[in-house]
């Protein structure tokens, strides 16, 4: 029992990070029905921006988090403005290829500048607590806490503010929205900025939890978060979070009770099974494909 509870804490930590990244995929898909494959690399840059920042000025964790989120938000906006906006009315395949290309450019630029993995310096005093036989660290609590706080804030933003309403409006009908006087381009740009900021925050937290940072770190984590977003129903924010915690949970629990060699096989088979019965994801709604 204690063993499973410990594994549950591990799953929560992993799930929180997947969730922050999955939200970025889902938000962009929501407004543009496009998959932003560069998102995993924006996540990776979050960790690198933090390294860069700390190398220049040693700042406390909270400040680093804010600066990194700001920097990745700016990057997200730039990517949208210069790589995706010119192709907004192009065939969807072109947009996807552009996204893949953007990701490769970011990844290889980073690889060119920093071909070696780098250690992430300690931003916090990491104390290990023993609670009734369970081990939990300050870092784990901060990762889970920050992620949940960011997710709640985003949920509020989407459901309760006029910006959120505009976002949801674009998501349901992109063609009509500008006719009603809503600045669609601006809303889309802010959506990219928000998604990238969450991805950057995830990169920073991930770098702190797994303190070896490399240019390729965005690939596998990015894919997993994308899978989580699809499982939850891509385009649906709560679904992305649900999918992420589900994926983190299944991955950790498979290893907890079965030989670890089968982890990916079993967790992805289970997730495929979900898609067989819920092809639009757990919380996704079937939509008519517009010709």
């Amino acid at each position, binding site marked *: 029992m204690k063993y499973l509870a410990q594994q549950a804490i591990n799953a929560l930590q992993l799930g929180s990070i997947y969730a922050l990244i999955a939200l970025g995929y889902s938000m962009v898909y929501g407004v543009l029905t496009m998959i932003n494959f560069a998102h995993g690399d924006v996540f990776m840059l979050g960790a690198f921006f933090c390294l860069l920042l700390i190398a220049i000025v040693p700042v406390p964790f909270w400040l680093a988090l804010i600066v990194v989120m700001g920097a990745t938000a700016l990057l997200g906006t730039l990517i949208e403005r210069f790589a995706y906006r010119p192709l907004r009315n192009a065939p969807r395949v072109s947009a996807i290829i552009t996204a893949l290309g953007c990701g490769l450019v970011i990844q290889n630029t980073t690889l060119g500048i920093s071909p070696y993995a*780098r250690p992430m310096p300690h931003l916090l005093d990491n104390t290990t607590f023993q609670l009734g036989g369970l081990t939990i660290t300050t870092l784990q609590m901060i990762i889970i806490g920050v992620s949940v706080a960011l997710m709640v804030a985003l949920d509020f933003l989407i459901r309760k503010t006029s910006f959120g309403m505009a976002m949801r409006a674009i998501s349901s009908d992109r063609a009509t929205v500008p006719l009603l006087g809503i600045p669609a381009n601006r809303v889309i740009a802010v959506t990219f900025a928000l998604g990238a900021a969450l991805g950057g925050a995830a990169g920073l937290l991930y770098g702190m939890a797994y303190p*070896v940072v490399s240019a390729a*770190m965005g690939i596998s984590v990015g894919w997993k978060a994308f899978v989580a977003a699809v499982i939850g129903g891509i385009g649906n924010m709560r679904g992305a979070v649900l999918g992420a915690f589900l994926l983190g949970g299944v*991955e950790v629990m498979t290893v907890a009770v079965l030989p*670890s060699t089968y982890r990916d096989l079993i967790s992805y088979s289970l997730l495929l099974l979900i898609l067989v019965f819920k092809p639009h994801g757990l919380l996704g709604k079937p939509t008519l494909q517009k010709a």
Partner: protein
Amino acid sequence: MRNLPALTAILCSGAFLLTSCQPSKPSVKIGINAELTGEMPAVGASCRQAAELFAEQVNKGGGLAVGAAKLPIQLSVVDNSCKADQSAAAAQRLISQDGVLVMVGPDASSCAIPAGEIAEALGCLMISPWSTNPKTTVDSTTGKTKKNVFRACFTDRFESPVLAAFATKKLNAKTAAVLYDVSSEAPTSQSALFKEAFEKAGGKVVAMETYTTGDRDFSAQLTKIRETAPDIIYLPAPYNDTPLIASQARQLGIKAPFLGSDAWSSPDIIKLDAGKNLEGSYFCNHYSTETPNPKAKQFIADYRARYGNDPDDVAALTYDAMTLAANRIAAAGKTDRAAVRDAMASTRSFDGVTGHFVYPEGAREPAKSAVIMQIKDGGFHWVSTVEP
């Protein structure tokens, strides 16, 4: 900066075309198939640097005596991205396009195995400095020893029992846990051989856990390992994964000492271990920079003077592989692949930077000593030497 050689090459070839049919100067071409990018860039960098150092030294001394002529060594360095397919492609390119006489590398077993298949098929001598997986020199279809593939290091069949003996005798370990990358060749064979040797020595392996290349979260596997409370944890992981595993293990409250393979040997492991979680851990290595061997001392001094850092074991083994290759070309007396390969096959002993090599008849790997090293006070320290 990086484009400079390419640019020069383009300009030179342009100039070459303009001056028309001047025959290129004869040289000895040696190919380097290295992990310059990808999972372990420090390995590729060491390999390239040592090879370049060797070539510079020979060329400064007038070149390599082949028959009556003295020819300069010309290196052809190709990146294999630390991927199986790309190392096969790199081998193909070096052998059939660049026309190298010998290929040195790849270093990682996952790359050396496929590249070895190409070298064997095209009949070109390949010397892997660092690949310890027994499969590297064995033909995958016939199961026979390959004709053209040699190495400058011992194999996992020697390394793993050395570590198992050290764990049971010196550390008095009764139980061990193993965590390894199941998608990589060297860790997989090292883990299986370690388990076999450790259990033969009377110990018990209480957990065999795996992950796949690129994983960063090991908390589930480590929590499982924690339940079995092992005396030691064997981590045959590369230098850049190990600090991650160690930090997560310590955060979970696992106090057992870590034991590592030769893949730990890059000094980068200490740079990446910001939390000093590996302090006090032991690993098996090919040589130590604290060695009294005069050849090694000279090499270490030259390498330091040229690059400003200590050569790790990949650098030392690459230097040995290069020396072997050059000696064999000189012994063959002609720039002919088959002759060089035969000269290599008839080599019985060799004194290198990493110690005394003995190649038994028909063997593709030398019998040579291993060292046990400890990570202490931010550096590698020699503990003991184990003779074969």
